[in-house]
């Protein structure tokens, strides 16, 4: 039955080449931990992607309860944490995933760096990777404010004060992030929008480019 549905769609749209293109590529021996255990260092990139997927999914569920305004934000997180079934697990996964993704990305960056895998012809992929790193840090910074508890507010205040010291760009960045003079209602809605729409959009675009390049060029050879 499923085969028939597939064939029906495939006859009209020729979808086989699309997924075979993703599926059909060789995994060289030197990156396969089944053959050389030390090849586990090649897992970090994949694990970063895995956690990113979990972050997107858990974040989607969090927004079902979270309310991005200063009156209700904290209350909604408190409710989510203490009343909603499995809310504590979903929020916990998003909270710890934010740290784990930084750890995995850091290890992945070090692996690529110390193996010199960023050298010609893979320069552009390295640059895109560093941009992904910055986007992730931005997601961490904006997400930290959203529960609207004490540490969130004061860490964001300090963060924006630090940004203010940068000449020219600083005040513009402050206006963009805070939405005004004080860290308040405007700031929270902006951080929410940046955390949920702007940065994830940038992240997905950059990750798409990252994966496209690695499929095009293949993984770097053994040292």
């Amino acid at each position, binding site marked *: 039955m499923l085969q028939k549905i597939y064939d029906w769609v495939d*006859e*009209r749209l*020729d979808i*086989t080449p699309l997924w*075979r293109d993703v*599926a*059909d*590529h*060789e*995994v060289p*021996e*030197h990156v*396969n*931990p*089944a*053959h050389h255990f030390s090849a586990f260092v090649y897992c970090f990139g*994949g*694990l970063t992607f*895995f956690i990113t997927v979990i972050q997107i999914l858990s974040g989607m569920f969090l927004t079902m309860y979270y309310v991005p305004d*200063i009156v209700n934000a*904290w*209350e909604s997180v*408190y409710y989510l944490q203490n009343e909603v079934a499995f809310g*504590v*697990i979903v*929020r*916990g*996964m998003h909270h*710890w*995933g*934010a*740290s*784990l993704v930084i750890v995995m990305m850091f290890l992945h960056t070090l692996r690529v*760096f110390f*193996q*010199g*895998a*960023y*050298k010609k012809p*893979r*320069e552009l992929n390295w*640059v895109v990777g*560093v941009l992904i790193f910055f986007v992730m840090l931005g997601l*961490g*910074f904006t997400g*930290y404010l959203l529960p*609207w*508890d*004490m*540490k969130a*507010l*004061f*860490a964001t*205040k*300090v*963060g924006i004060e*630090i940004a203010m*010291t940068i000449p020219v760009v600083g005040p513009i960045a402050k206006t963009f992030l805070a939405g005004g003079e*004080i*860290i308040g209602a405007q700031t929270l809605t902006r951080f929410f929008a940046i955390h949920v729409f702007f940065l994830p959009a940038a992240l997905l675009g950059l990750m798409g480019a990252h994966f496209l390049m690695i499929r095009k060029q293949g993984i770097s050879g053994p040292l």
Partner: protein
Amino acid sequence: MHRGKGMKFVGDSRVPAERKPNIPKDYSEFPGKTEAFWPNFLLKEWMVGAVFLIGYLILTIVHESPLEKKADPTDAGYIPLPDWYFLFLYQLLKYKYAAGDYVLIGTVIIPGLAFGALMLAPFLDTGLERRPSKRPVATGLMLLGLISITYLTWESVVTHDWEKAKTQGKIVDVSFDENDPGYQIYQKQSCVGCHGNTLSGGASGPSLIGTGLKPEEIMKIAKEGKPPGMPPNAFKGSDEELKQLAEFISKLEKK
């Protein structure tokens, strides 16, 4: 691939009518023990992912994600702390030559040089050699960066007042006078069985703190019950006591 003359299409579309055999490439021509990504290698990755997910979930269950009390901008004594992966940048600004008049060194010059160099690494380190030992400058600079980040994070952690941090943001449960006649009545009645000693609720009764109800409304609930959990006639005592109890509960506010 068949192109040009003689090609047949599905209807007037651009989809070729001729079916291509759906066979994966043979990887035997590649060197070493190369294998196909799909499905051989993906299955192994899947298993690594499953093991990782178990550890991840254990971490999530063992350490509940923290939530401090609601943001209060008037609390001037609060010592802020960013998330752990920003600590090294935060700590850097505590040194004399990266703060005050020299703050630009700490906020722009040092991080700018470090992250700029990281981003432009492929254009700075253009040699053909890939082994870390054969490119000592790149390796040395990265190690220096790693040591600096570790040291700064460490310094930030040991100088932070964790004792104070633990109490300063704690969610404070509502404080009430245990000698209030209302509370005395509350304890003697059956209320305490479901709503708990601290009135914060439990498995069979909701919290009574910050209900926003007027005393009259509370008196009504105590007498007539509230489906599904609260039975009618739960309160047994005089009207005077009921009034005191209702006023006591009505005054409880969430912090």
